[in-house]
């Protein structure tokens, strides 16, 4: 049985705002019947103030999908559309006092429904770009598709590298067999590809970075700062932001803000930023959310 919080149970057994809304002006349909999750979010938006006057949902899904839908409608009612867009899937999960890692996708679905419904209200086309794979790393909630993408993009060849780039496998280590299988699968593609002969085996550190000169600690700190500064505008465009909290050896702790926060997206963002830092510094660093500072 899942370890659901009392709040999840409460919102599952007594969902708020369930059922069809009378003449909504923003509707978002997301999910997949294949995976057993589907959510329709309906909004009534005041065109003057762009305030969400009412919200309701219809959900086909498990306990946490229904609870996440219910939570979402409660969170966004009364917010303006711009405010609502700042609600991340982590906000939904936090509001419910947490979700099991296997169930984080329910909160992601909630956030996607919100984006879809607002896009529908604004007459825009909303396109989802993430594909979800089987959950591999339960400690950090990282799925197979993400790991495979990162392995392919960075020519990774070892479990340790995968942990450095994605965090997957960096916890209890029980998913290492699964990660090795993904590595083997990607390696096999390389073998049969015509470019195989010209493809150099990746060094332990990305090649460009390996050549970088050694930095003093001051230069290193500056470099980390510069790299992060260069990335910020990109995140801000997506209503997110990042700040450095602490640099402790090869662990760099940051706070992600706004739209960056949230399980799957957060992992992907951290991962991208980490890759940039590794390249800039010419050494392996691990980018971690500040929330993990105590644990490390």
């Amino acid at each position, binding site marked *: 049985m899942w370890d659901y919080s009392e709040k999840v*149970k409460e919102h*599952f*057994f007594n*969902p708020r705002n*369930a*059922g069809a809304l009378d003449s909504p002006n923003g509707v978002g*349909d*997301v*999910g*997949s*019947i*294949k*995976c*057993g*999750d*589907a*959510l*329709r979010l309906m909004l009534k938006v005041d065109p003057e103030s762009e305030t969400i006057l009412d919200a309701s*949902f*219809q*959900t*086909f*899904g*498990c*306990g*946490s*999908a*229904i609870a996440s839908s219910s939570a979402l409608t409660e969170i966004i009612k009364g917010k303006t559309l711009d405010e609502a867009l700042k609600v991340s899937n982590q906000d939904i999960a936090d509001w419910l006092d947490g979700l*099991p890692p*296997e*169930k984080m996708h329910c909160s992601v679905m909630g956030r*996607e429904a919100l984006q*879809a419904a607002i896009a529908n209200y604004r007459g825009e086309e*909303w*396109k*989802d770009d993430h594909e*979800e*794979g*089987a*959950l591999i790393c339960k400690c950090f909630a990282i799925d197979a598709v993400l790991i495979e993408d990162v392995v392919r993009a960075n020519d990774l060849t070892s479990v340790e590298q995968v942990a450095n780039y994605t965090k997957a496998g960096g916890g209890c280590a029980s998913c290492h067999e699964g990660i090795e299988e993904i590595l083997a699968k990607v390696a096999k593609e390389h073998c049969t590809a015509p470019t195989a002969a010209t493809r150099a085996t990746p060094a332990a550190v990305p090649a460009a970075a390996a050549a970088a000169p050694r930095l003093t600690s001051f230069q290193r700190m500056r470099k980390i700062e510069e790299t992060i500064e260069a990335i910020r505008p990109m995140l801000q465009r997506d209503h997110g932001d990042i700040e450095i909290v602490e640099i402790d050896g090869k662990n760099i702790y940051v706070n992600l803000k706004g739209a960056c926060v949230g399980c799957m997206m957060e992992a992907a963002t951290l991962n991208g930023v980490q890759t940039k830092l590794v390249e800039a510094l010419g050494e392996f660093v691990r980018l971690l959310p500040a929330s993990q500072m105590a644990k490390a």
Partner: protein
Amino acid sequence: MAPIYLDNNATTACDPAVVAAMLPFFTEQFGNPSSMHSFGNKVGFAIKEARAKVQALLGAEHDSEIIFTSCGTESDSTAILSALKAQPERNQIITTAVEHPAVLTLCDYLEKEGYVVTRLGVDKRGRLDMDEYRAALGPRTAIVSAMWANNESGTIFPVEAMAEMAHAAGAQFHTDAVQAVGKLPIDLKKTKIDLLSLSGHKLHAPKGVGVLYLRRGARFRPLLRGGHQERGRRAGTENAASIVGLGVAAEQAMTHMAFENTEVKRLRDRLEAGILAQVPRAFPTGDVTNRLPNTSNIAFEFVEGEAILLLLNKAGIAASSGSACTSGSLEPSHVMRAMGIPYTAAHGTTRFSLSRYNTEAEMNRVIAAVPPVIAQLRKISPYWGDKGPAENPEADFAPQYA
């Protein structure tokens, strides 16, 4: 009101007689059966007695054909790996698409190691195609592994006939009978079955004890090598208390076999008919004319199984589901998918599995409790309108990503 347990295919309660028989082996007769002193001198005899009781339940010709193991999974693994090791000239495994993960996951792994795995499909009712099976058998087939009865739908496979066919091709035949033992009469000496797995906790014995039946003369290679226990075919000090418990459970199963196939079956039929009479857009899955007497698996369309279970649990009813969410995987049950049950129904499959401890009064309570649970969830399902399912549910509600 006392909760109602209808999840006996997952595991069962220990029979009180089983528990009573086990207790002395924790405190008084705790010695090692291999030792010379008096702390264990009754243990060897008790194990022998248990072996005879299991032999009787299975209709095995010799008591030495019974090997005690730690669980059904170990028995399955031992059987399949043994067949491959003992017949290195044969590299093919034939199994079915609806086996328990104890078999399927191992076969997936062996396939990666280079073995050839043939997975026989099933039809809408969960039945195998014997012609497809015949065509798959060949001179390189090392072992056929087909379950006697399916844990999700209860569908029974014609394993006796399949064993004959395997033998004709010179292959060994294994059956995972974890769900069948104790519910269906079995007489192995009249069959060509070489290997059979059973698990104690499905027949009111404790968890963590199982049996591998190994026909005398069938080539065998142990999984665990070490001491001389189980005649060197399964090393490791015997789980004496649990083996004794399993013996008593086997004896009880023999006593209750007729009851299981009359009274338990009647209660199951009553439950199923009672639910189907009240809930629209619901249907039983599997081969309803040829299934375990205790199992009813009902697909409720347009609702999701985990949500059903949570609401049933609140009403004091324990069942299980083939939905993806209950297992944390991305796809609903492989058994339901193999039968071609559409996703809108597969996620809502709910299994009610009874035991001899269930009562008529309990069935009445469940029949009353299920319809409002389904109605409540349909009310908030985007696939369900005011009066019934949306005209064309999958087209009407077509989310933007899949």
